């Protein structure tokens, strides 16, 4: 128990040294890129920055899928002259309802629809379940499996788009991660006013090109004719335009978009370029509709609806629509980054300015220093030499904690700093248990070496049990906590582990060395 082979001694001291080496990267920036330079990150509450929790609107994912299916069915039924009374997406029930005018056409309708819902890809389960009843109704229900797959895809795609949009703003080192099933965490260090980012993320930026129905009267108050929709103008929502529901060209086919000024008018415009598919479609539509109006629709609002003067075949064009430098740039950023599959809502926002962060660091550092000194003073006063052994361990403990946190590249938050201090207060508990036990064994009349042996052995049982329970509580905090509180849980859990090491190994090593050198008749505990 009290004897350490040279190898064991070397391993213990080596681990302490390793801890110290791991702390070094926190002191200055990496001198060379090939060095593994792992540091403790400062949390947003200390360095200043913004934390945004975004929620992907899953309802709209469902609705969109249903509506595009309705479109597909409408087009499929037309050639066979299958007429219907009702064809409607019902997003709340996750289904599509089709009521035929003529119930005898039920089989024909099903035959036409079946290829549309046949499984695609490797999953081999149909996306929709089709049921029919003899009165001529067909119900298509979106399966839960397909819905989950689509939701997962939507979140992952949203993360990608969010990352691209934020990268465009030049924020350094943003962190974008998924949380739960439908949420995205965005952390923006150094951004204390997240307004611009929020604006960029607040739009789905789904752009479409749709023909204008020039016969319809959108501002007369009636319902839109079948296949049409009335959309408001972006600049003047009171004014509506009747556009065909059919999307001729989709913004997903864009390869580039830039803000520029039109050389003739001097106005801000957004120029764009299509990929080959988009360019061909755009060419076809413009060729067939010269002298008609073509609406450019963004998120359900018409940006502009210019008249097509001549076919546009090169796949390039420009959008004009009352832009200034900022709005043109923003729109080009959004179009370049691509459309979000569903709208995002900010459900939680926390931003901390740099001043408050600096205040917090100062407050944390002062508390840490004062607390550390108080604990050291206490141990020295009440345990003398054995208290100083504990104090050495305490210092090593602090170094090891920082070392491990650097290795994990953990985030240090203000509650995390509190956690470090509390850990230091609790870490000496192991030494107190050991010291008290040794003292007790000596009082029972054991000679020094035997008292040390028994003291350490017996104290360790207690130390293990008492730390295990505290460890459990903090692991739970890590699992269920969020943000800065997670940082607190990390520091405490790491601290419990390191304090077990210093108590079990280092204290014993120090005491055994001291005993071997002095051979005292009485232990000064």
């Amino acid at each position: 128990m009290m004897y350490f082979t040279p190898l064991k001694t070397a391993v213990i001291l080596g681990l302490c040294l390793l801890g110290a080496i791991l702390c070094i990267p926190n002191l200055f920036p990496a001198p060379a890129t090939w060095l593994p330079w792992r540091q403790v990150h400062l949390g947003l509450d200390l360095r200043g920055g913004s934390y945004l929790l975004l929620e992907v609107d899953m309802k709209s994912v469902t609705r969109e899928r249903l509506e595009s299916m309705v479109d597909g069915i409408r087009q499929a039924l037309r050639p066979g002259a299958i007429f219907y009374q009702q064809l409607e997406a019902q997003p709340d029930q996750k289904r599509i309802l089709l009521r035929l005018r003529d119930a005898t056409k039920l089989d024909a309708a099903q035959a036409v629809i079946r290829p549309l819902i046949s499984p695609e890809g490797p999953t081999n389960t149909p996306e929709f379940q089709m049921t029919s009843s003899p009165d001529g109704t067909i119900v298509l229900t979106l399966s839960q499996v397909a819905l989950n797959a689509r939701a997962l895809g939507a979140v992952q795609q949203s993360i990608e788009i969010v990352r691209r949009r934020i990268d465009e703003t030049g924020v350094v080192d943003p962190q974008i991660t998924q949380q739960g099933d439908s949420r995205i965490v965005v952390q923006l260090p150094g951004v204390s006013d997240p307004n611009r980012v929020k604006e960029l993320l607040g739009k789905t930026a789904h752009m479409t090109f749709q023909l204008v129905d020039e016969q319809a009267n959108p501002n007369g108050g009636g319902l839109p004719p079948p296949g049409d929709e009335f959309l408001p103008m972006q600049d003047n929502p009171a004014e509506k335009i009747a556009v065909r529901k059919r999307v001729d060209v989709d913004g997903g086919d864009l390869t580039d978009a830039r803000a520029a000024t039109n050389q003739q008018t001097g106005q801000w415009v957004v120029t764009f370029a299509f990929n080959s598919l988009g360019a061909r479609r755009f060419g076809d539509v413009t060729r067939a509709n010269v002298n008609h109006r073509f609406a450019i629709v963004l998120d359900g609002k018409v940006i502009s609806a210019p008249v097509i003067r001549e076919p546009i075949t090169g796949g390039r064009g420009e959008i004009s629509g009352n832009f200034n430098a900022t709005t043109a740039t923003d729109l080009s950023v959004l179009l370049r980054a691509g459309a979000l599959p569903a709208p995002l809502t900010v459900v939680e926002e926390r931003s901390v300015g740099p001043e408050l962060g600096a205040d917090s660091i100062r407050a944390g550092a002062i508390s840490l220093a004062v607390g550390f000194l108080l604990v050291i003073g206490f141990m020295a006063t009440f345990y003398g030499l054995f208290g100083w052994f504990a104090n050495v361990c305490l210092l090593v403990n602090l170094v090891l904690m920082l070392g491990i946190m650097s290795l994990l590249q953990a985030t240090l938050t203000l509650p995390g700093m509190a956690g470090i201090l509390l850990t230091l207060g609790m870490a000496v508990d192991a030494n107190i248990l050991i010291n008290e036990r040794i003292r007790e064994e000596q009082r029972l009349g054991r000679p020094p070496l035997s008292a040390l042996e028994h003291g350490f052995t017996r104290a360790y049982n207690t130390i293990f049990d008492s730390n295990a329970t505290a460890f459990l509580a903090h692991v739970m905090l890590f699992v269920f906590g969020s943000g800065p509180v997670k940082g607190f849980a990390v520091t405490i859990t790491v601290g419990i582990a390191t304090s077990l090491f210093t108590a079990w190994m280092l204290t014993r090593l120090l005491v055994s060395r001291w005993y071997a050198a002095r051979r005292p008749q009485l232990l000064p505990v």
Partner: protein
Amino acid sequence: MFMRPTFRLVRDGTKIEFMRGRYMGLIVSAILSAASVILFFYPGLNEGIDFSGGIVMEVRTPGPADFARIRSSLISENIPEQGVQRFGDESEVLIRLGQQPTEGAVQQTVDRVRTALEKSIPGVKLLRTDAVGASVSAELFRNGLYALGISLAMIMVYIWFRFEWQFAVGAVVTLVLDITKAIGFLAITRIEFDLVMVAAILTILGYSTNDKVVVYDRVRENLRKYKTMPLRELIDLSINETLNRTLGTSMTVFLASLPLALFGGQSISGFAWVMLFGIIVGTSSSIFIAAPILLFLGEHRLRREGAQAAPAKLGATTRP
């Protein structure tokens, strides 16, 4: 100072009969906890926005804060001005707004406050903005409860496996009493109840368990050592033997938390005060609550295996 201890907290070989105060301890604890439960419902906790949802903005103005101006600028934006209060030094202002009808409205309100302040007070700085929507706040609260509940369950199972079920029940009942008192403390002091407070309560849970385990551990050891000593004496002996350690550790944790309460700044000092309270409660409950419960539950069961046949068998059959 470098050799022998200068002081001892408690002299060696004390023989205080703690178990004489067992009824007193339990009654006082039950009354305090009952009062805390009442305080929890009336007046209730001062819930922070983590759990109630809403907006908190911390603002620093260039000079001393002009409250009239801040209020009027908010009123002009149709934002209720009751939520404006002083915070920290005289140039700092806290604006607190309740839950908004929708997630989108939260965001709009934040923007409106921001622009209103920037317009009316040039040079104003937003130190901190927290906006939590209703769905998130409900979830945060639920997660906090989960963390608490699962921790308690795990502690109970762990102690049951390592000791006996009487120890586990004693510890968990005591912990629940400790936690209710901490909540009562929060209700009285009006310290804001937020996520960090859940961390504080879990830390108290960890600390308090730690403290109980040390006493229990000694009881377990003494049960093996003194096969015929009555349980009441044995528990008293165990508490006395571990008294220096119990007080010593609570002192060091207390000393470590004190600077946080004094210098830790607004956001962490509440946490530290709750910790300080929890340390005192946790330490005293090890002696006056956990130990008496163990005495009541274990009186005829927790007796030496083999020494006296009858009670040992009884103990064996009731043990799960």
